[in-house]
């Protein structure tokens, strides 16, 4: 294996890892706030990707330029999902953990069916974007521009999430996370904070979906393979930790890329899973988890 190959594989892992991290960030945010694992997370990403495709197909608007629009769309979707079902799932007296798992799981199946109802089962792909097909050649190591742009946006989104945590709202978010009942006493509307949290979580995965749509295909089941990686990323980084999601995403991207080189590519996810289980043996709450 040449140095060039190693660098190329590492670059591929890095670019993919950042996407994984951003997909996981939304999941982690929601979990940290209200102890809910959203099993429809991949489907939210799929919705964002379809939104990009539909707008591109109708107007030719480049995915990059759709970013604010689709992110806002997903933000709204997240809030609606919270108000429509999650708030209720959180209010049940018994089996709360189980109810939320299966409510979001049922939602995932519903969204998949709905996507097929609306768009059919066909795979779609956005083509001829501003960046598609272009790569930077850095001394034999190629950095595809769509992925590079996705990485930059991912990092910016992480910075944005960190900035939000510094604002009034972020402090309210933090307080709600620390003590759900006490915040009501100081006049914070818990329900509103939770809804915003869902909006942000869905918005984050929406951004990931938009960037992904620039170089990936779209289909009703596209969320599933990313979602599995996202759950592992969140658990590896530690539920609720943004930094954990970032580090774990990058780690998983690299482990996956190099397992594919060293072992067979069909076993690359086993490499990821093995690293994850090994880390959990020593840190049962993930790399940065407190919860």
């Amino acid at each position, binding site marked *: *294996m040449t140095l060039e190959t190693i660098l190329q594989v590492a670059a*591929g892992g890095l670019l993919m890892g950042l996407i994984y991290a951003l997909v996981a960030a939304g999941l982690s945010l929601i979990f940290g706030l209200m102890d809910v694992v959203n099993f429809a997370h991949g489907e939210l990403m799929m919705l964002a990707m379809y939104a990009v495709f539909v707008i591109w197909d109708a107007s030719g608007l480049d995915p990059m330029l759709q970013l604010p629009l689709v992110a806002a769309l997903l933000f709204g979707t997240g809030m609606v999902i919270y108000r429509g079902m999650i708030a209720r799932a959180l209010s049940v007296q018994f089996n709360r953990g189980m109810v939320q798992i299966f409510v979001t799981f049922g939602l995932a199946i519903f969204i998949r069916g709905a996507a*097929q109802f609306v768009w059919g089962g066909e*795979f*779609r792909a956005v*083509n001829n974007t501003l960046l598609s097909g272009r790569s930077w050649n850095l001394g034999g190591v190629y950095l595809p521009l769509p992925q590079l742009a996705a990485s930059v946006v991912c990092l910016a989104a992480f910075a944005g999430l960190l900035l939000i945590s510094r604002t009034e709202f972020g402090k309210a978010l933090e307080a709600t996370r620390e003590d759900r009942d006490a915040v009501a006493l100081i006049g914070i509307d818990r329900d509103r904070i939770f809804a915003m949290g869902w909006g942000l979580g869905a918005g984050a995965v929406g951004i990931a979906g938009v960037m992904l749509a620039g170089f*990936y*295909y779209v289909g009703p089941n596209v969320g599933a*393979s990313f979602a599995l990686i996202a759950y592992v990323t969140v658990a590896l980084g530690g539920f609720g930790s943004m930094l954990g999601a970032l580090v774990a995403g990058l780690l998983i991207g690299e482990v996956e890329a190099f397992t594919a080189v060293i072992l067979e590519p069909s076993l*690359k996810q086993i490499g990821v899973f093995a690293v994850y289980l090994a880390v959990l043996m020593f840190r049962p709450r993930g790399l940065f988890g407190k919860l």
Partner: protein
Amino acid sequence: MDRRNFMIGAGALATAATARKAQAADDVVIGVVYPLTGNGAAVGLDAKAAYEVAAEIINGSHTPIGVSMGKGGGLDKLGGAKVRLVFADSQNDPQKARAEAERLITQDKAVAIVGSYTSATGATISQVTERYEVPYLAADNSSPSLHQRGLKWFFRTSPHDEMFTKGMFDFLADIAKKTGRPAKTVALFYEDSIFGTDSSNVQRKLAAAAGMQVVADIRYRAASPSLSTEAQKLKAANADVILPSSYTSDAILILRAMSEIGYKPKAILAQAAGFQESAFMQGAGALAETVMSRSSFALDADKLRPAIPVVNALYKAHNNKDMNDNTSREITALLTLADAINRAGSAKPEAIRAALVATDIPGSATIMPWAGVKFDEMGQNTLCNPVIQQVFGGAYKTVWPFDLAAKDVIWTVGT
């Protein structure tokens, strides 16, 4: 009213007059099992359209089409009985496929089953039909393991992976002879499914027999989030010919991934599947140019098979796209089955089986570039030789066998 409904409406009007007369003869029910939801839905829905077109050809009143059962008006030896299709959704799940086949046979009184895209569902359907003693006609299952079990009620009009792959290596031998620039190395790239495994096993064997070196043997996880490392491995191996066995999504992804790392393969010769889907053309765009794929169908072989444009127009009106490798085989399967039922002169499964065994349809009475349809003792059609096609300007053109070729092949290996 969209075009499709209009078509059906027009067909209904046209046949209304004859329908009353034909009422005496009972419909012959044929069960059709495909994935209509879930992972294989895109292909399954195309298949549904293809079978509806085939049924229209058999039942409708239209000017005769130059294929077997192409004169319309139903099954004349059964008093003009109509073929009625009942569709069932397998969700690509073998258990579901089995249960649906059973339901079609016992509840809907299907006298035969056709199906079913993936080989795993074909496996369980054919076990049900064996138990119920009803013919199963595999239109597009390609695993050789299916007919090798020696089932009595299993028939396959389509080639299986060994025949397909043999066609691909015959092409490689021919092109070497023609240009004097043989492919010396090949790279295998296949998904971790029954299809990928079967396909690669034969490719490995035939490459060794042809004296070609396998410089990369890459089994990858189907529908992975990324194929960039896999692309890098292919680039590092830089084989003369890459032989991919992939479904649509991965076919798009690997072409994009190779291009992203600045790798332009010398030649790609695909085991059809995803590479033959229209979604692949749309998704891969310019990257698909000069990609070669085996096919059992040649849309451009209209000189040899004048029925192709006629049938294709019907299909296009129905599903708004051209026939492809899969849909053409599905239409052929139903026409073959209807022909057998008609010759049997009876809707009794045993009679249909006997007629299927005796099937001998010349290639000229099909829409396929095949020599014809004739089953061996294991139920496998032996006359279905594949063709090789290449993408020119976003569409596949037949380039081999050379006497069928619509275009000269672009072969840059060794230049």
